[in-house]
């Protein structure tokens, strides 16, 4: 396959720029697509070519396969999907394969296989990857269910086959509670979903979300770029990730790398991908799912290995072998990523789109910022609230944390609220600092009210700042009122009167 000369990124924001940066380094031309709402977005300005895909002013969709393919063909570009949108859409990839447009990612077949829960589970079992013990098929007979539960080992989780939202779910600690729990959960599922079928899954205590970044090529080579710990999540959305995991031990690590690479080779997967695992408190690990794309948190793997994952994806798409052999991948140091969202942590994380008035990114050593924002940029309403990812790297976990603390104080975003204060709190949290947090961290170890509460904290600086601002605002409005011909008492007069009153009081 000839070398790729031009790449269209079927995405927006920071990830589009991230891919373009690698293209620019490799001398590959870049093509951006954008919607009407994103006309002023930085990814549009960064690329060599940019095409609007909106048909009308209120059309904010990036899901326009026909248009994207037409532009890619006209421009003579391969397509990189970023994450989200078309990144794990087998129909889209299938179409590209049929129409002769190069897709920088895995095959449609692999996306389809890993997109199906049962398909992925079966493929992984076949490849020797441990999956959460239990049954995936409906169990109706209570005696049979009891026997299975005993084999899986308590505690177990009963789940409704057609369940969702926690309904028809029961945690069972021991056999004595099994029957009543089964009946209740099944009846709840029957009432809620019209189907009382249940299945059994082992309950993992103190679950950690640990994932292995992998790379594969079309020549049967596969390697791993170590693991990431992604247990700090809010509403199942990752917010802070770090590499390596501070929780798992070297023995677990080695086993996880081994099964991940074996699985990738077994299914013949190529391009970048991630195997997500749940790891219990006693270091037993089980396959959750495989992401067949570049992930948001890929920079931290790049920071500890020096591998540019996007470069490897492009090479693989060109049909070339991976640049590295496993033994050439050396881990140096520790990296942390904080996802910066346009939301207000002190107001229950309410979305905060709008105009960014000040935007200063952190500089200096040990920092990497992937951003899709600038001063004067209006964060649109229509898309994901992530505006940037900031990453720190250090020789040790401790030094990476210290670097991140410094980075977050330097990072200034005004005009909208961001999740920066939330990250600053997490970085002070003792459980986080000790590195023994699991996926329940935000619910159980993080004091959400702490975002509002300042008990024991001296408010003097805030009081001083607010009072001076009030005084200066009064002066400004007084000055304005003398330049305008206001009717009645001017603010300036009022200000003078209040000042003399203040002088008397003082």
């Amino acid at each position, binding site marked *: 396959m000839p070398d790729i000369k031009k790449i269209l990124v079927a995405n927006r924001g920071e990830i589009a720029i991230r891919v373009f940066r690698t293209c620019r380094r490799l001398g590959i031309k870049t093509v951006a697509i954008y919607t009407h709402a994103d006309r002023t977005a930085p990814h549009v300005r960064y690329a060599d070519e940019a095409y609007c895909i909106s048909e009308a002013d209120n059309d904010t969709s990036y899901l326009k396969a026909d248009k994207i393919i037409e532009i890619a063909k006209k421009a003579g570009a391969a397509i990189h999907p970023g994450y989200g949108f078309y990144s794990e859409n087998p129909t889209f990839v299938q179409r590209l394969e049929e129409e002769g447009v190069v897709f920088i990612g895995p095959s449609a077949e692999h996306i389809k296989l890993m997109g199906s829960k049962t398909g992925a589970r079966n493929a992984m079992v076949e490849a020797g990857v441990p999956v959460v013990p239990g049954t995936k098929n409906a169990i109706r007979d209570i005696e049979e269910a009891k026997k299975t539960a005993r084999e899986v080992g308590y505690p177990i989780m009963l789940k409704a086959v057609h369940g969702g939202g926690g309904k028809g779910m029961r945690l069972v600690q021991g056999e004595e509670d099994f029957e009543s729990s089964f009946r209740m959960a099944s009846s709840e599922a029957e009432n809620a979903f019209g189907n009382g079928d249940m299945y059994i899954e082992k309950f993992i205590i103190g679950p950690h979300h640990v994932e292995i970044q992998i790379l594969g090529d079309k020549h049967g080579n596969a390697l791993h770029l170590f693991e990431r710990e992604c247990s700090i999540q809010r509403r199942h959305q990752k917010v802070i990730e770090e590499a390596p995991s501070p929780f798992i031990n070297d023995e677990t690590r080695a086993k996880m790398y081994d099964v991940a690479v074996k699985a990738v080779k077994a299914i013949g997967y190529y391009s970048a991908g991630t195997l997500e695992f749940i790891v219990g408190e006693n270091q037993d690990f089980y396959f959750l799912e495989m992401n067949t794309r570049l992930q948001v948190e890929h920079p931290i793997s790049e920071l500890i290995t020096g591998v540019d994952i996007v470069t490897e994806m492009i090479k693989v798409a060109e049909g070339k072998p991976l640049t590295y052999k496993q033994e050439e991948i050396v881990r140096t140091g520790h990296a942390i990523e904080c996802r910066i969202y346009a939301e207000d942590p002190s107001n229950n994380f309410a979305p905060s789109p709008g105009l960014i008035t000040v935007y200063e990114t952190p500089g200096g050593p040990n920092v990497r910022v992937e951003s899709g924002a600038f001063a004067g940029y209006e964060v649109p309403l229509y898309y994901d609230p992530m505006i940037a990812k900031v990453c720190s790297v250090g020789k040790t976990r401790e030094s990476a944390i210290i670097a991140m603390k410094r980075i977050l104080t330097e990072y200034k975003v005004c005009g909208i609220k961001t999740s920066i204060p939330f990250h600053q709190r997490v970085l002070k949290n003792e459980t986080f600092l000790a590195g023994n947090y699991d996926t329940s961290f935000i619910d159980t170890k993080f004091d959400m009210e702490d975002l509002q509460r300042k008990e024991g904290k001296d408010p003097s600086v805030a009081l001083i700042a607010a009072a001076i601002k*009030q005084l200066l605002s009064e002066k400004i409005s007084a000055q304005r009122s003398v330049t305008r011909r206001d009717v009645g008492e001017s603010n300036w007069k009022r200000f003078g009167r209040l000042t003399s009153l203040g002088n008397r009081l003082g």
Partner: protein
Amino acid sequence: MITKRQYFATVDKGEQEYTIDIVEETSNVFTVSIDGKESTVDFARMGDNLYSIIIDGRSYDIDVTEKGDNFSVLMGGDHFDVEVLDEMKRLMKLRTSAGLEGRQVIEAQMPGMIWKVLVEPEQEVKAGQPLMILVAMKMENEIKAPKDGVVQELFVKPDQTVAAGDKLAVVE
């Protein structure tokens, strides 16, 4: 001209009231005393809401957002809501702080798109009842009635885009 002012401030709607005496010595240099404790303050604006202030030699980087007499102050991850009133405003507030009485105008707390309107004009509503759903950045936010009453006016329709502070409804 030396400017002197006295303010009364509360933090995070707390009960404690601080008395702040402030004197502008020269441009950007102030003497501020909180309940009698005096400090010298160098106050420099770094851009938009960003300020660098040095209090008795200690330097702080802060972000101050102003809305009327309320100031949202962010420093090193700590967030304080400070209300600063002069004597006249303080007296007025004491007179009117009688709770949610009468006509309540509901404003959008954030920009977004009205996805659904769940009530009709003249409809009776209970405090906390959702009136409409505003969607911003893929998240749904319920706009609730602040008190028991009747929906007097609806200013928005489904699919309408609103800015922060736009009027949404009146409950009386």
